[in-house]
């Protein structure tokens, strides 16, 4: 098997790995780098549980190849908190009970952060469409939307 050698930046750290040419970034993260916070719900880009950002762009890491991310800047759930200080989204997801089983939570947090980075004051509709690429089967999305609304308000100091 011919491997591909990749140098990249993940959550601010320089990381090097070798992977197969056809290996999804998700598998690299989970199986080669031990970063199991990104989840595989489908492997076909339909559920969003593996959401990460690559160069600031929200992607399903199951649809990106490890070989593609040389020189990129990748953010995953493992890098969301600043040490022991949670990102406001993380804090509000807990306090609003925006998670039940929690398998979709890392993907939702990454997607919600990407949304708020682009649009700090989204309407309910913009939140709902902004998160429509992430599936949650437990919550009915109610408390997820409320947690994002609360975070938006908090981060804007409103």
């Amino acid at each position, binding site marked *: 098997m011919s491997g591909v050698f990749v140098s990249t930046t993940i959550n601010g750290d320089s990381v090097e790995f070798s992977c197969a040419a056809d290996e999804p970034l998700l598998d690299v993260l989970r199986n080669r780098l031990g970063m199991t916070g990104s989840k595989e719900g489908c492997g076909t880009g*339909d559920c969003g549980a593996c959401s990460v950002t690559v160069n600031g762009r929200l992607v399903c890491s199951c649809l990106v190849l490890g070989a593609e991310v040389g020189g990129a800047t990748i953010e995953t759930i493992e890098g969301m908190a600043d040490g022991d200080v949670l990102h406001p989204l*993380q804090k509000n997801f807990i306090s609003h009970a925006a998670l039940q*089983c*929690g398998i979709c939570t890392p993907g939702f947090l990454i997607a919600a952060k990407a949304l708020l980075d682009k649009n700090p004051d989204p309407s309910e509709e913009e939140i709902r469409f902004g*998160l429509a690429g992430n599936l949650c089967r*437990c919550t*009915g999305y*109610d408390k997820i939307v409320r947690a994002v609304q609360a975070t938006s308000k908090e981060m804007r100091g409103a």
Partner: protein
Amino acid sequence: MPLDTSYVQKTLKQVGTRPLRPDGLDKVTGRARFGADYNAPGQLIALVLRSPHPHARIRKIDTSKAEKLAGVKAIITSADLPDLTNGDRNMRDMLENCMARKKVLYDGHAVAAVAAIDVTTARKALKLIKVDYEILPHVTDVDEALKPSAPVIHDDVFTDGVEPKPTKPSNNNKRASFGHGDVAQGFREADVVVEHSFKTEQTHQGYIEPHSCVANVSPDGTGELWVCTQGHFVYRNQCAALLGMDISRLRVTASEIGGGFGGKTHIWTEPVALALSRKANRPVKLTMSREEVFRCSGPTSSTSIDMKIGAKKDGTITAAHGVLRYHGGAFPATWAEFGAMTAFACYDLKNVKSDSIEVIVNRPKTAAYRAPSAPMAAFAVESVMDELARKIGMDPVDFRIKNAAKEGTKSSYGPVYGPIGIGATLEAAKNHPHMKAPLGKNQGRGMACGFWFNFGGQTCTDINVTPDGTVTVAVGTIDVGGSRASIGLIVAEELGIPYDHVRVVIADTSTLGHNDMTDGSRGTFSTTMACVAASRNVVKELGKRAAKMWDIPEDAVVWEDGHAKPAGSNAGNFPPLSIREIAAGAGNTGGPIAGHNEMVADGAGVSFATHICDIEVDPETGRSSVKRYTVIQDAGKAVHPTYVEGQYQGGAVQGIGWALNEEYIYGKDGRLQNAGFLDYRIPVCSDLPFIDTMILEIPNPNHPYGVRGVGETSIVPPLATVANAMSNATGVRMTHIPMSPPRVLKAIDALKKH
């Protein structure tokens, strides 16, 4: 001393508050370990070869080429899983479902499995296994399977519950009847009778986490299994039985579970992974793909239901009769019975009968799905109820209130009810602002009721007081949606200590006695009951130790607010001793302080809900969207109200998905055509409004805090609620779930033609 489980009203300091859940931090930071997040040193990766045919005889499986592939460490077929089930039909079916024996019975049925050094090698190996099939005729439709011309799937299934027992095998494994009174007479007394036939399509629980396990069997016959499951003790017992292991030799550790909803109550891949590990002498990791989850885990039944209800003009129901056909997938099951038992449970009926017909089809083995079988039955009953109310000119809520079951009602499935909440949920619905809000163009409003039994079951719990006075609670029931928070609240309340001094963990199977799985909405009900008993044992022990420290009799000590106090001035004048002080001295007063309990948690309180839905339909396309939705449900006692709301909202939305979008689509070739989240569309955030909730608390008399189960009932009313809303919006009675745009459009067009 056995626990007095009776409900006692008291002032609560912690139960009913909304603290942060203990596993929240791990779950928002990616630390929490779910099924596929486990790995063992030296593990192999396993994949399963699955049948492309819905029904075929296996003539031969040739694994020789695959075995020769470098990196392949073990291959198994059914020959490696000998039948040790000793005539136990359920266990034999379970075994056969894990690995096909003489025949494959559905598209996706496992026929062989490979463990290799990596996934690429395992994939190559699967392609090298040659299976010679003799293709047989198949049937996937619940009504078609009952026809005399249908291919018979099992030649050893003869209908139970029919006298005389048939001599010919068929796809109907059982019939049963429930009810009381004289239905024929009741219909003669009716002024109006409404009768319809309904169909509901098969849906999947749709948990986002695919099944995954790591099995590690050692040459000495001991084994370990890390797995996502709703019941690790049950998995242990069943896997041990199928593999011929002593139960004590298999230790199962449950991962965090990424959703189950009933779908992780059955073993599929676990015995396969264990058998591969045993053969390869290496740890084996086996994770299902999403396609496999759809094709070959355990979705719910599709159904065909005939429903007939009659009433007098004053709104009194005189008779109700339903015939319910549910498929159990490719194996005998009793899902129709659950439907028949729950169908009429909301009402006080003089004459009622429900007949269940169990059907076998070439689809995957049906598993429980949240209040299994009840939503489809409620869809049929509540649709007919709505039409009946309209025909006699009564408000649909008032019609239901008039006929609602109450304390003392003999239920349609047998038992006489204690205090129940159906009437209260209906009254709350009647007075809810949602009911009075104006509707827009092309919008309709519907409401419906639902019931679920709830369950108690076997439960075993340990509470240990640590040397600093904080407490660990080891439970054996999987936390599927926040039960660790509820359990922590109850233990904190009982011991009189802060919630954050209680740490609840899910223990592995070698640490506690058997626990039934988290199903039947039993997680919080049964575990908190056992934890109340265990806490009281702890308190008793704490009192003993305080008595020893003070050198007074044990019965002269009382426990209040987390402290031992002398019972009165006669007992002595001692300042209160905190749990921390007693724990610190435990080494001198008798050793570690602990409380244990094991029980069968009887007395689960039945649960009722009423839902209200507003829907808007586009008459040009048949597309619909839910505009407003309200859930009103009796919780008995909401231990952690936020997570009770979460159960209400989640169940409602699963039901909305079922009502509007979700369905298994099988082609004429008997193959599943939509085995992925793109084509099997579950609701997404932008499909929905906020889901309003109202928690009613009518205490369950059989639980010390009045707790009923809350997890399942919320999925029972939505099919009917949404269908009634759709029928009101379109003017045509919707009888086929899901009400996808093409079906709605067809119904609207048919109405126009009339």
